[in-house]
């Protein structure tokens, strides 16, 4: 058509005497036509290629998928020891649309150990319209080689990253774990999910305040205690007086590398989630309130001869002295009767105000998502306040308890717990919650408890340990269960050295049993106190290489108020 048009035009122009011009014009038009045809052919070819031939290739889908499977930064302890990292692996996928013989593929692949069963494989590749389906994630190199040797069309491997936890159970509750795609499920992994993805591009890692040596010691000693005293579980934490968590162990624990084998109870972090009535360790708070508010002094006397009646209940002492006790004696020998009478001195409103100021009514703040709320009594009357004075009626987490006690002992200045190394440096200086004198008196009393009181079994020769024990019955339904069927929680909280407790420790055992070794007792002084001793004995030389003179307890101000040691 194009040529005939030109010919027609040429004939017309020839008749008018412009033959030469027409010839030139013809050449130009033919050249332009050819160029245009070539260009449009190329564009058409590319359109067909993009829209039909290469559409939804498995590769494109895989690239889209792998955007979400990113590397994550390492997590290390305060000394740079690796705790969690991502290592490169290979994951096996199939493109069912190009598999020629599904039966043959299923038969061959299912015979390789580590690959899915024949039934599962058939189910995965049954839909031929699919272009991408995972067959097995994080395949070991030996299995990868076996699969590749089969040479089955449509079976491929893709580079992948697997999150691994070097020390298995050791840091399970703190570091947490990730799912198969590397997404944080719990612990620091969940809380710092975005930061870990960012840090990896900056060649940074997440430095925690934890110390692998201390964590290993605490884990070992707590495991020994749980098995020795046949406890249902236990928890322990080491914290510095700057708020840095040095070790955090909760038992039972789990292996974050193998989440398939763990139950929800294994994943429960007792340190931050477990709320329970702490028992006599709360007398530290009671005495601190009494001294700080000026309601009592170390020498104030409280009659603990007879049980104290509160409505239809009566407050009694476990192996009590049955005589008037000074405040110092009441604390050291852990008298419930005297504790309730001390509370009566300062009253409910003062107690409530101090509890709020000490942070016992609000949930703790730390960089893991598993944090329990305290269970505060709805009706805070006189009888509730009295029971609270010796550790019942208020359920708190061990993290809250150690934070509050550390704050009191840290010269009365508030401490904020943290798991991130260096964070404490950017925190503003803590506010004062009790006076310096109160802090010193409480430290003295805790030292005397270890020397002469219920915490004797926590004493380590040559080390100035301070501490307080607490044994509480666990709430069961509306009460504490029948006398013969009561479950206990025993707790020890203490630190070292007395004057500036750089290291604080809390140890709890869930329902420890009386054994021959404890002479038939299941109280804190017989199970958690010796456990604390073992931990102190092993951790203090690691933390303090220098020499400390033997403690001189005769200079303690409160000692003169202890009549019978």
């Amino acid at each position, binding site marked *: 058509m194009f040529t005939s048009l030109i010919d027609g035009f040429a004939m017309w122009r020839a008749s008018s005497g412009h033959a030469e011009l027409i010839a030139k014009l013809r050449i130009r038009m033919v050249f332009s036509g050819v160029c245009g045809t070539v260009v449009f052919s190329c564009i058409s070819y590319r359109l067909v290629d993009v829209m039909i031939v290469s559409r939804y290739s498995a590769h494109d889908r895989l690239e889209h998928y792998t955007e979400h499977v990113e590397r994550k930064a*390492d997590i290390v302890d305060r000394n740079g*020891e*690796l*705790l969690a*990292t*991502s*290592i*490169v692996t290979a994951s096996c996928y199939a493109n069912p649309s190009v598999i020629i013989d599904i039966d043959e593929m299923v038969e061959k692949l299912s015979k390789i150990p580590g690959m899915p069963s024949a039934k599962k494989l058939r189910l995965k590749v049954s839909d031929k319209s699919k272009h991408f389906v995972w067959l097995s994630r994080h395949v070991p190199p030996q299995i990868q080689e076996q699969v590749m040797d089969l040479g089955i069309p449509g079976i491929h491997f893709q580079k992948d990253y697997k999150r*691994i936890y*070097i*020390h298995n159970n*050791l840091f399970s509750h703190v570091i947490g774990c990730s799912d198969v795609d590397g997404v944080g499920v719990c612990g620091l992994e969940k809380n710092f999910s975005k930061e870990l993805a960012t840090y990896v591009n900056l060649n940074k890692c997440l430095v925690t305040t934890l110390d*692998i*040596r201390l964590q*290993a010691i605490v884990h070992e000693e707590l495991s020994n205690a749980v098995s020795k005293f046949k406890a249902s579980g236990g928890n322990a934490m080491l914290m510095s007086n700057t708020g840095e968590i040095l070790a955090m162990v909760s038992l039972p624990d789990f292996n974050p590398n193998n989440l398939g084998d763990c139950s929800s109870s294994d994943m429960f972090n007792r340190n931050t989630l477990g709320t329970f009535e702490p028992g006599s360790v709360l007398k530290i708070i009671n005495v601190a309130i009494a001294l700080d508010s000026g309601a009592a002094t170390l020498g104030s006397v409280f009659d603990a001869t007879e049980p104290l009646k509160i409505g239809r209940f009566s407050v009694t002492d476990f192996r009590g002295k049955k005589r008037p006790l000074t405040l110092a004696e009441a604390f050291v020998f852990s008298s419930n009767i005297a504790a309730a009478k001390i509370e009566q001195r300062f009253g409910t409103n003062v107690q409530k105000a101090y509890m709020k100021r000490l942070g016992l009514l609000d949930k703790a703040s730390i960089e893991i998502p598993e944090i329990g709320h305290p269970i505060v009594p709805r009706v805070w009357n006189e009888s509730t306040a009295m029971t609270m004075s010796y550790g019942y009626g208020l359920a708190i987490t061990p993290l809250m308890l150690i934070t509050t006690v550390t704050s009191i002992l840290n010269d009365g200045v508030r401490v904020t717990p943290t798991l991130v190394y260096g964070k404490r440096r950017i925190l503003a200086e803590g506010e004062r919650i009790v006076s310096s004198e109160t802090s010193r008196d409480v430290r003295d009393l805790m030292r005397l408890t270890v020397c002469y009181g219920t915490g004797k079994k926590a004493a*380590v*020769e*040559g*080390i100035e340990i301070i501490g307080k024990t607490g044994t509480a019955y666990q709430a069961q339904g509306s009460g504490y269960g029948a006398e013969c069927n009561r479950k206990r929680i025993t707790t020890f909280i203490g630190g070292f050295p007395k004057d500036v407790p750089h290291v604080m420790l809390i140890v709890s055992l869930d329902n420890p049993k009386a054994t021959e070794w404890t002479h038939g007792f299941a109280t804190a002084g017989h199970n958690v106190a010796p456990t604390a001793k073992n931990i102190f*004995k*092993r951790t*203090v*030389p690691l933390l303090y290489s220098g*020499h*400390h*003179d033997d403690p001189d307890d005769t200079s303690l101000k409160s000692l003169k108020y202890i009549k019978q040691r």
Partner: protein
Amino acid sequence: MNRAVVISLSLLTAVGLCVLRIKYEVVFLRKKLHDIEHDIQKYQDDIRIYSAEWGCLNDPKRLKALCEKYLSGMRPMEKNQIVSHKKLAEGGVSANTDYRGAFEKFLDESLDRKS
């Protein structure tokens, strides 16, 4: 007129060739950069695997087991094994403590084990 056309076409061809050359150089450099980035990534991945292996070798349980096996005569230092200069000067160290004898005994035991 014809000369101007020839010069323009020559310039156009020259510029075209330059652009083509630059393009291929860019493609080559981009490939080189990609290869380097790939190598860096590979080395980083390898380092991570070695670090993980090193971490496993440093596992406290493993180290403890090795210490118990090969250093059975040694134990962690305890507080009462350290004496301050002040205490030494005051003569506060127990006369019964035979540090020299204890050290020599330890050396003998170590030599016996090695032999």
